[in-house]
């Protein structure tokens, strides 16, 4: 309330000041309108992202700490607490957390963010409960089933309540399952076997991205698409960045990786079809789907030995070009669609990409002292440039949004 009052006072002062500028001929009336619009939308955005976001962040951190505390309490008093009591503590904590969260967010409605965090805490305690049961009965068989079950069981609750933090937890659980399950099936091949997971995770990132876009375009699912898009975009760009170092030349070839990728692609295709069936599609959505699909095809073809030799021989160049195109595409889409997350992630990976290639090119060419000085200066100046550019794009997006 205090923030809104302050904003109104500032805007009133600005209105008076700009009216005088117009009277004195310093600016045109149209310019005055644009200035007022700019400040109004920026202040509104600041207000929205200020204390509310802080409450959410603090509440989520609090939930995680309480969850960890409960688990550690049980672990530290393992032999003192009877088996039944251990389970009762966890079940009670889970139900109490869910109940309190629902009451605060939906029944009373006066603490929606704290309520959402308590529901997230309930989901965390549910996961801890599963691992506690595994401990009590000394279950070690096929441990990837743990995160799989956790993710799948909290998914209905995430869809029902449209809670982004809960959806993000479910997606992270399922990604952990994917890593553990795939690694379980890989033959023992030393540390390099982990590199074989890169094409798999790139496919998973693209699938999440595709699913997220489908969610965003269907009005009933719009509120829950954010975590899919953000995590999908992050995983795709992160694996794309790793591929620019050409790790696949060292990775052993495992047929099982294709089986997992095929399974993931089965999820991607319906999401594309669902988007194409929509009458009102977002701009460039066809090109985006095609681009994502091509990335997966090129990476999987490069992973397969001897499938298309020119792709293998020039894989480093191809992966670098592909990644550069990914970044350009993501930032352009972010601008066209007004997705701040695209712009932020695109520019972050652009900076990392430049830094990595600087190391590649100049590590052997320059004297070490000169290398670090120039590198440091580039980082500082590049950071300032990118941050200014990022802010400019985001403020343009906010302005466009305010105009509409």
């Amino acid at each position, binding site marked *: 309330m205090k923030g809104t009052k302050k904003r109104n006072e500032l805007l009133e002062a600005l209105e008076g000041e700009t009216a005088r500028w117009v009277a004195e001929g310093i600016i045109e009336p149209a310019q005055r309108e644009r200035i007022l619009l700019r400040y109004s939308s920026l202040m509104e955005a600041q207000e929205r992202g200020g204390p509310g976001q802080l409450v959410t962040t603090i509440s989520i951190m609090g939930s995680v700490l309480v969850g960890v505390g409960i688990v550690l309490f049980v672990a530290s008093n393992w032999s003192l607490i009877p088996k039944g009591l251990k389970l009762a503590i966890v079940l009670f904590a889970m139900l109490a957390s869910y109940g309190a969260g629902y009451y605060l967010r939906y029944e009373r409605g006066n603490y929606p963010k704290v309520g959402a965090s308590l529901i997230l805490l309930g989901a965390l305690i549910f996961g801890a409960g599963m691992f506690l049961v595994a401990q009590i009965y000394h279950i070690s068989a096929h441990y990837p089933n743990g995160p799989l079950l956790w993710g799948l069981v909290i998914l209905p609750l995430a869809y*029902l309540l449209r809670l982004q933090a809960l959806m993000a937890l479910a997606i992270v659980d399922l990604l952990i399952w994917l890593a553990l399950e795939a690694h379980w099936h890989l033959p023992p091949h030393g540390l390099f076997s982990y590199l074989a997971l890169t094409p798999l995770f790139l496919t998973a990132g693209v699938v999440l991205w595709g699913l997220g876009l489908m969610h965003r375009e269907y009005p009933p699912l719009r509120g829950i698409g954010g975590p899919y898009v953000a995590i999908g975009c992050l995983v795709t760009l992160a694996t794309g960045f790793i591929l620019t170092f050409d790790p696949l030349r060292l990775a052993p070839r495992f047929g099982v990786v294709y089986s997992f990728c095929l399974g993931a692609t089965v999820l991607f295709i319906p999401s594309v079809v669902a988007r194409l069936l929509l009458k009102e599609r977002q701009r460039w959505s066809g090109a985006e789907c095609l681009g994502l699909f091509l990335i997966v095809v090129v990476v999987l073809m490069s992973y397969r030995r001897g499938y298309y030799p020119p792709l293998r021989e020039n894989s480093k160049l191809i992966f670098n070009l592909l990644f550069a195109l990914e970044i350009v595409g993501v930032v352009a889409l972010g601008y066209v669609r007004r997705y701040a997350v695209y712009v932020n992630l695109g520019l972050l990976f652009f900076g990392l990409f430049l830094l990595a290639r600087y190391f590649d090119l100049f590590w052997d060419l320059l004297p070490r002292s000169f290398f670090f000085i120039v590198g440091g200066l580039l980082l500082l100046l590049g950071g300032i440039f990118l941050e200014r550019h990022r802010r400019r794009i985001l403020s343009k997006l906010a302005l466009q949004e305010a105009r509409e």
Partner: protein
Amino acid sequence: MRVKFVLAVSLQLLVLLGIIAYRAHWVATGHRVVLRTTPVDPRDVFRGDYVDLRYEISFLKPAQLGTKERFARGDRVYVGLELAEDGTCRASSLSKTRPAEGRFIQGRVVDTVDSSRCEILLREDSGLLRTLLVSSACPGLKKGSRTTLCTREDGTVLHYTTPERPVGRECARGKQLVGIIEDLKVQGGQSLHVDYGIESYFVEEGKGRAIESSRNARDLRVEVSLREDGKGIITALRMGERELK
């Protein structure tokens, strides 16, 4: 909304209670056996310690258990158990098919090491007899089959064709021989690492290392409850007469 929320939370509660009920029923109704074990590399994990356990039946040699079956990583296996004088169980048989009777435990092959060697007596088309060595159990070859082999000068075989795969790779680095197998002897054999799902025992924080370094660690025994299909679940860990928690 409230009803749906209650249903979604009930689903989670049902999953947890279902796992507990299923495991408790398994413990209560399973057939109890005792296995001798040794602790390996206990690690501190987030939720406390666990002792990583290995059993005598974790490492098996099929040939010593009287089976000629070949095993691959991921195969489900059934290990027959016989009671020893000290009350613990030892492996008596090994098979990929479930035994019709007797006590057995179900496991999965997690690694195989093949130390098989095969000696071939080859009659070349010219009538010359040669003794050749293959560093495997000669899969696909049998007495009387015709084959093309790529060999080194010392008589070891680099690769060969079989009736199922009659076209082989090019023999660029060796000498190509064609003939009929007169005799074939397989020596050595496979060694298997089998997991039974009873390899972790969770203990209170800080106790894992104490168990591992204990003087009586060699006298460690695990009590396992076996389901009808041979799957096991740990019910107790004993050091001598004392039960560890």
